[in-house]
């Protein structure tokens, strides 16, 4: 795979179970939930679990150049709980509440993030279905190449309609990674589109799937994302966080008739991590 290679730092990663990202590939999920700081109780009542996950996750991070830093927010389902609540209400003859409608748009989380962090640069919201994370990474790499740095933030949440449609709960999860052009220590990432997946190499190859499409053949040794992270599109960003926090590897998501493939290589020691 050709294309630019950029440095990548994990700023936060969290999923419902609360264990640290470096362990997400090692064994079954578990552990005590982490404390939830950042948003005061009043603000927290007004935002969704998904938006709170992102805003609180990045709460303590020092972001570079907040006036110009590009942000790519990736979400496959968006504010699904808020949307479901609104649609159920309308279907039952109810009315939309202004705050509920405002909070149902896909870019709500990144808007709240820009408010919380004073981010006045470009903010893009990419919804790529089952290639959401790698497509967002591709876009963030392009922006970081152009201006030096870019913030990739991803997350998704489940809702009753998701469980009814797919037969499994879609657990809440999210992560943020800072991409930097030029020489940096730590993890390096490369992303591109390939028509066929290469054989597994150094580190695990995590592979996503479109649950509404026919299964595709996978290379020997590939690990299905859903088996580790569940069927939510948040699995992609959680897997990317795990690869950066751990020893590297690759993430592939179905895109068109091929795959968007992100290869993460770790150079130098593991950072303490969030």
């Amino acid at each position, binding site marked *: 795979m050709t294309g630019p290679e950029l440095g990548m730092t994990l700023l936060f990663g969290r999923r419902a179970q609360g264990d640290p990202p470096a362990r997400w590939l090692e064994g079954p999920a578990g552990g005590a939930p982490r404390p939830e700081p950042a948003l005061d109780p009043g603000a927290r009542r007004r935002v969704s679990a998904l938006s709170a996950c992102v805003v609180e996750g990045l709460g303590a991070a020092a972001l570079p150049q907040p006036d110009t830093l590009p942000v790519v927010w990736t979400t496959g389902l968006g504010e699904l709980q808020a949307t479901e609540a609104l649609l159920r209400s*309308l*279907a039952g003859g109810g009315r939309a509440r202004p705050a509920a409608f405002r909070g149902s748009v896909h870019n709500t989380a990144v808007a709240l993030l820009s408010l919380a962090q004073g981010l*006045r640069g470009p903010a893009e919201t990419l919804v790529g279905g089952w290639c*959401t994370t790698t497509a967002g990474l591709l876009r963030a790499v392009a922006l970081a190449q152009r201006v030096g740095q870019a913030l990739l933030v991803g997350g998704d949440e489940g809702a009753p309609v998701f469980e009814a449609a797919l037969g499994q709960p879609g657990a809440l999860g999210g992560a943020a990674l800072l991409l930097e052009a030029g020489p940096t220590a730590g993890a390096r990432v490369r992303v591109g*589109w390939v028509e066929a997946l290469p054989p597994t190499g150094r580190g695990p190859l995590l592979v996503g799937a479109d649950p509404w499409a026919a299964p595709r053949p996978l290379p020997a040794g590939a690990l299905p994302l859903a088996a580790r992270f569940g069927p939510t599109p948040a699995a992609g960003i959680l897997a990317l966080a795990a690869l950066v926090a751990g020893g590297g590897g690759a993430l592939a998501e179905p895109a068109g008739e*091929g795959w968007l493939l992100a290869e993460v290589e770790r150079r130098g020691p593991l950072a303490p991590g969030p």
Partner: protein
Amino acid sequence: MALAPVFGPRPGAEPVVITGLGAVTPLGADPEALYEALCAGRSALGPAPYPGPGLAACLPGRPAASALAVAAARQATRGLPERRGLWVVCGTTAADLGGLEAGWAAYAADPSAPPALERQLGHHPAEQVRAALGSRAPAWGVSTACTSGAVALAQAAGLVQDGLAPAALALGVDALCALTWEGFGALGLRAPGPCRPFDAGREGLSLGEGAAALLLEPASAARRRGARPLAVLEAVGLASDARDLSAPHPDGEGLRRAIQAAVGGGEPPGWVIAHATGTRLNDAAEARALGATLPGAAVGALKGALGHTLGAAAALDALVAVQVLQRGVLPPVIGLRESELGLDLARAPRRIDARWGMSTSAAFGGGSCAVLLRRPEEGL
């Protein structure tokens, strides 16, 4: 530190040109018909399919957004011989949610019968376009509310400029749905009558539906296949207000910065197709931003004719801006009587200097976008 454009000229990179257009709107079923209707001063606003005050610009038959996107995509790629490598980026706010109301009503009564979730996910129209055109390449959605179509344009152009895509299709699409109708009603933003962008008596927006598609290629690829570039996509600026979830900065701060990022140190355009929803706050903020960054520019706006098409709006604005570059005439602002905003508004079709032009958009979440287009020189 100055804000950089999210797309713009890069050393060593060749221009990205627009070589195909597609549009499906209540005013015209293709770009030419749409442009003629706009210049003739027609409006598609009429009775809406939902209860409550307000008119809408509706297509017949309650079409799904994906169907509109596919139709526009087919028009834009008509002359493209090779579509297998075409990347697709489609802006939308509601995907195919319109048309799923019955499914949601059934689900509300019986939670074991969910509506077709995959159809309301934001990538669905892009994926439908990809499949319909026979592309093997990736497709995804952009959902930055009312700037979605312009952000899709920037992303698609970046894919072409970076050499990832031999060609890319940028779209914007939305169809009317109960969620947006009721939502804008709850916010008190729907005008009781036809919307009047930039008018002193403006009372809110009118909703609409439609799709726009723009085909992007490297200039050399267009030349090799004998395609005529319609416009050069010069730059796209994008900025955030970081101030409020839905209300714009009163001085149009984010839009001002987006315009400055797109123009950079270059020649500012002499005309612009503005977002101009017809709401009191948006139009006032936008007027301040335009007055500060493009003083004296001629200003056009489409929403008095097409309504606010949400995820399609910024793509439709950019598409019409390409046509203005081609024809040299800026369509008039429909619904305008008198304005207190101090802009040079096009009250009738206006012949303008068509070397450079711009379209602007603003969105829930505080994002603003400016698209700078250039008429291609001979031989490009």
